[in-house]
């Protein structure tokens, strides 16, 4: 045997060479792959935080239009909104690209995934497929929402109310539902991927959390609708 030494008992000692991983020409360097994976999770977490903050600001509508207008006026006067919006848009675009990397792109892989989903019917795999579909839908809805709101500043309760009452209710109901569920499944997957969280417990906590966010979101929507219909 090559490179083997024999000890006094006549046993051959072989030291196996340490091999480096096989690498093909088109794989990304390990460092980049790691950073892309971290960035996907961080951008998702950051967007979730933003959404919670956004909901927090909207909750002021429950205390009357005046409160919301005052808050919006404050954010705009000190350019907090104008400074924050581009940042959020960039974050959103980054999240879309990072997530798209993990989405099966060829028809063959998509078909493989569909067959697997139908065959094994594993719940957590289904929620992942849901993330892809809801992500695509959210990208479209969020783009419309950002365009409509940001091209029509300042933000005022009356204007938003009318918008929801007259035109966009059909868009905002799925928007609220999809945002909250996409967020829940995303945070859940983040916890499993990075911390291996006990999944049974996470289900309960996230279930309650989502129910809370959903009901607050719907309450905000109803308030806006009322404001619009009263005008």
């Amino acid at each position, binding site marked *: 045997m090559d490179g083997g030494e024999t000890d006094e008992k006549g046993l051959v000692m072989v030291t196996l060479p340490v*091999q480096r*991983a096989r690498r093909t020409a088109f794989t*990304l360097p390990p460092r980049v792959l790691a950073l892309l994976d971290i960035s996907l999770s961080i951008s998702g977490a950051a967007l979730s935080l933003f959404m919670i903050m956004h909901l927090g600001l909207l909750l002021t509508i429950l205390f009357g239009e005046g409160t919301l207008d005052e808050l919006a006026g404050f954010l705009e006067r000190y350019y907090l909104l104008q400074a924050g919006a581009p940042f959020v848009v960039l974050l959103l675009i980054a999240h879309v690209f990072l997530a798209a990397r993990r989405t099966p792109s060829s028809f063959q892989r998509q078909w493989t995934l569909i067959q*697997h989903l139908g*065959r094994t019917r594993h719940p957590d795999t289904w929620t992942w497929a849901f993330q892809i579909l809801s992500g695509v839908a959210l990208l479209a809805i969020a783009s419309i929402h950002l365009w409509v709101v940001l091209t029509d500043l300042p933000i005022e309760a009356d204007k938003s109310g009318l918008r929801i009452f007259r035109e966009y209710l059909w868009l905002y109901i799925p928007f609220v539902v999809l945002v909250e569920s996409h967020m829940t499944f995303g945070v859940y997957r*983040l916890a499993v*991927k*990075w911390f291996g969280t006990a999944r049974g417990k996470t289900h309960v906590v996230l279930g309650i959390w989502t129910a809370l966010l959903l009901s607050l979101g719907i309450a905000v929507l109803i308030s806006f609708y009322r404001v619009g219909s009263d005008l």
Partner: protein
Amino acid sequence: MPDRELRFRVFRHNPFDPESTPRMVQFQLTETPRMTLFTALTRIREELEPSLQFDIVCRAAVCGSCAILVNGKPRLACRTRIETLPNDITLMPLPFFKLVADLSVDTGQWFRDMGTRVQSWINAREPFDPNAEEARMSNETAAEIYELDRCIECGCCVAACGAAQMNPEYLGAAGMLRIARFLADPRDGRPEAAVFDVVSTEEGIFGCIGLAACEDYCPKDLPLTSRLAYLRRKTALLALRKSSQVEESTVADGYA
């Protein structure tokens, strides 16, 4: 509830026979007390269809050869009790692996290749001295190694994994667990860069998208998601370090 009439729909195909086409074949059996899928398959072969191929060796959830898809879910035939199943039972070979014939797939080849890729052996720190006293190891370390060594290489984790179906080069939860097993072992002194190179790839930990089906269908209840998460965290931290530091480290200390 014995006496049930069971209807089995079984996948049949022999890829080595040019005449053969993939098809589903029906078999009927009457349930008997404490029947397992192993008993049922053996009876089908003995009483109804002697040419049916499937793998059963230990019938005690030890050898890992009997994994098949039972109504779409990867299970060990030898430890699946019929009373937990409905009257209609569909049996398919595990996806992802090479089909031998009918319900039999070649997991051995894949696991051997995986073992080579992750270097499934102790990379000794020093040349072995047969006369020296064995190095001591704490109870916790020994228990951890033993826990991670319980994998029976049945392939259920890979067959259940959506990421693996879409990426045939993926090392799977079994591969990641194997790496975690050697990282837990103080006798192993593999260089950090070697671990990092295997793990920090699309075939390694970054091929994992956190579906957790591996853990849900592991017949040995191995702690897969927690060890995968551990590898992901450590690898990400190493990635943030300077590459020269990773290159120079002779042992996988960053993973400790």
